C-alpha cells in the first residue's frame, strides 16, 4: 500500500511540512492570548471579581483536561483538520461533520471578534487624540484581508510572524504587571471590592462567570490543525500544546490581578479592551503605547491563527467531500488551502461588521464548548475501540478516564453558565447544528466515499 501511494505521490499536491514546536506554541498561544486582552473580563461582569478569578482557574483546569486528552489523540491521529479527523476515525462521519463545523465556527467567530476589537481600539485611541466618529469598517476589513493574504502566501511565514507578535504580546503583559508592582501607576491598586462586594450575584455568579472564563484559553486546542504541516507531529503537538497551557495560566492570572486592581469591577465587566484600559488608568504613556501595541498584536496573532485553523478544517471537509470538493484544493506554489482561505473571508466579514462583540464571542464559545463535550466521549471511545496495546500512541495521558469525567462535569457547568443570560443563543446554535446534521446525513453524505474516510494505518476497531 505504501508503495502504490509513494509512486503516485510526486504528482500530487499536499500541504508543506515545515513547522517546528515553536510554531505550534505560537499557533496555540497566539490564538488564545487575545483572550487576556479582551473578552475574559465579561466573566467579571457576570459574577464579580472573585468569580472572575475562580472562573480563570476552573477554566484552566478544564483546558488542562482538554490538552491531555487532545495530546493523546492528536499524537496518534495527525492530520489537518485536527479534531475533525479524530472524530471521523473514532466516532463517525456525522460527528466529524459537526466537529468540523464547530471548529470553523469557533475560529471564524473568534477571528471576527478580533477584527471588531481592533476597530474598537483604534476608535478609542482616535477618541483620546481628539478625533470623534472614526469609521471602523475599513480597518476591520483591512485586518481580515491582510491576514488572509498572509495565510494565502504560505504557512511558514504566517506562523513565524505569529511567533514574533505573540511573544511581544506576552511580554507586554508581564511588563505591565512588573511596572504596576514597582509603582509605575499614578493610581493605586485597589482590591477593596474583593472584600466589600465579593460576590454580587452570590454563588450563582461563579458558575455564570465560567461562560467567559473559557475565553482565557479558548482555541488552544487549535494546535492540532497544523498536524500535516508540522515536521514531527507526535512530539511537537503535545509539547507545544502543554507549553501553551502553562503560558496561558500564568498570563491569565497576571491579567486578572492587574486589571482587577486598577479598574472598578463594574467597568471591567463590560470593558472592550481591559488591559489597555488598565494601562490608561496608570497614566503612564509608555505603558499605554506598549499595551496598545500588545493589544493590536494579540488580536492580529489570534485572527491570523484563526484563519489558519478555520481554513484547515474547511479544507479537510472539502477533501473528504463533506463539503463541495472544490474546497479541497491546495495552491500549487504556496501549498496552502487557498480556496478555503478566500471563501471564509466574507463570512468573517459578515460577522465582524454586523454583530455585537459579546454575541460573536458567545457564538464562538458555544462552538468551542460543543467541541469539548465531544472530546469527552471521543476519548472514552478511542480507548475502547483501540486499547493501549493495539496501536502505538505518541503520548498516553495519565489517569484515564478521570480527565474525561472532569471535563464533562465542567462542560455541563459551562452550559448552565451560558444558559444564564444567553439561553436563546444556545438554543439557536443547537438548532443550527441539528438542522445541519440532518442535512448532512440525509443529503450531503451521499457524495462521500465510504471506506476512503478511514486513512489511518490502524487495525479494525474492537467491537465493529
Amino acid at each position, binding site marked *: 500500500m*505504501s508503495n502504490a*501511494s*509513494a509512486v503516485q*505521490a510526486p*504528482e*500530487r*499536491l*499536499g*500541504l508543506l*511540512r515545515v513547522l517546528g514546536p515553536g510554531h505550534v506554541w505560537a499557533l496555540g498561544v497566539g490564538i488564545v492570548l487575545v483572550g487576556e486582552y479582551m473578552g475574559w473580563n465579561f466573566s467579571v461582569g457576570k459574577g464579580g471579581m472573585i468569580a472572575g478569578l475562580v472562573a480563570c482557574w476552573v477554566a484552566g483546569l478544564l483546558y488542562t483536561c482538554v490538552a491531555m486528552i487532545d495530546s493523546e489523540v492528536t499524537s496518534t491521529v*495527525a*492530520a*489537518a*483538520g485536527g479534531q475533525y*479527523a479524530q472524530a471521523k476515525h473514532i466516532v463517525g462521519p456525522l460527528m466529524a461533520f459537526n466537529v468540523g463545523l464547530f471548529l470553523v465556527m469557533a475560529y471564524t467567530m473568534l477571528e471576527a471578534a478580533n477584527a471588531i476589537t481592533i476597530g474598537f481600539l483604534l476608535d478609542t485611541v*482616535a477618541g483620546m487624540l481628539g*478625533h470623534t466618529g*472614526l*469609521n471602523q469598517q*475599513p*480597518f476591520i*476589513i*483591512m485586518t481580515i*484581508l*491582510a491576514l*488572509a*493574504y498572509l495565510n*494565502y502566501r504560505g504557512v511558514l511565514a504566517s506562523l513565524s510572524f505569529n511567533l514574533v507578535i505573540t511573544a511581544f504580546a506576552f511580554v507586554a503583559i508581564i511588563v505591565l504587571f512588573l511596572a504596576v508592582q514597582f509603582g509605575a501607576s499614578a493610581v493605586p491598586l485597589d482590591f477593596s471590592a474583593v472584600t466589600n462586594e465579593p460576590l454580587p450575584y452570590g454563588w450563582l455568579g461563579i458558575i455564570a462567570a465560567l461562560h467567559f472564563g473559557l475565553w482565557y484559553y479558548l482555541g488552544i486546542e487549535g494546535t492540532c490543525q497544523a498536524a*500535516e504541516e508540522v515536521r514531527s507531529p507526535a512530539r511537537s503537538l503535545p509539547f507545544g500544546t502543554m507549553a501553551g497551557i502553562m503560558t496561558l495560566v500564568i498570563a491569565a492570572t497576571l491579567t486578572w490581578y492587574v486589571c482587577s486592581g486598577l479598574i472598578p469591577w463594574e467597568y471591567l465587566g463590560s470593558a472592550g479592551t481591559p488591559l489597555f484600559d488598565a494601562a490608561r488608568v496608570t497614566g503612564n504613556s509608555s505603558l499605554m503605547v506598549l499595551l496598545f501595541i500588545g493589544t493590536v498584536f494579540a488580536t492580529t496573532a489570534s485572527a491570523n491563527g484563526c484563519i489558519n485553523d478555520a481554513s484547515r478544517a474547511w479544507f*479537510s471537509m*472539502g*477533501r*473528504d467531500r463533506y463539503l463541495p*470538493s*472544490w474546497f*479541497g*484544493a*491546495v*495552491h*500549487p*506554489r504556496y501549498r496552502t488551502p*487557498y*480556496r478555503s482561505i*478566500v471563501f471564509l473571508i466574507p463570512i468573517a466579514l459578515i460577522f465582524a461588521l454586523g454583530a455585537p462583540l459579546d454575541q460573536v464571542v458567545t457564538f464562538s464559545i458555544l462552538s468551542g464548548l460543543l467541541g469539548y463535550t465531544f472530546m469527552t466521549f471521543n476519548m472514552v471511545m478511542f480507548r475502547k475501540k483501540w486499547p493501549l496495546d493495539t496501536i502505538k500512541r505518541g503520548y498516553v495521558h495519565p489517569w484515564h478516564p478521570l480527565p474525561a469525567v472532569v471535563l464533562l462535569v465542567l462542560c455541563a457547568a459551562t452550559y448552565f453558565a451560558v444558559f444564564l443570560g444567553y439561553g436563546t443563543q444556545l438554543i439557536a446554535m443547537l438548532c443550527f447544528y441539528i438542522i445541519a446534521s440532518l442535512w448532512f446525513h440525509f443529503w450531503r453524505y451521499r457524495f462521500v466515499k465510504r471506506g476512503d474516510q478511514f*486513512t*489511518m*494505518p490502524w487495525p479494525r476497531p474492537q467491537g465493529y
Partner: protein
Amino acid sequence: MDIWNYLEIAAWVISAIIAGIMLLDMIKVDTTYDNELLTSSREGELELTQERHEL
C-alpha cells in the same frame, strides 16, 4: 480632514489592493492548473511520502 480620515482612506485602498491580488492569483491558478491536480491532496498520504523520504 485629519490624519484619521487619511488612514481610513488608506485602509480602504489597501483592502481593495489585497483583495484584488488574491482574487487575481486565485483565478490565474484555477485557470492554469487542472482541478484534478489542485484537489489531489489526500489525508494520511503526506505521512507516507514523508516516511519514504526519511528512509
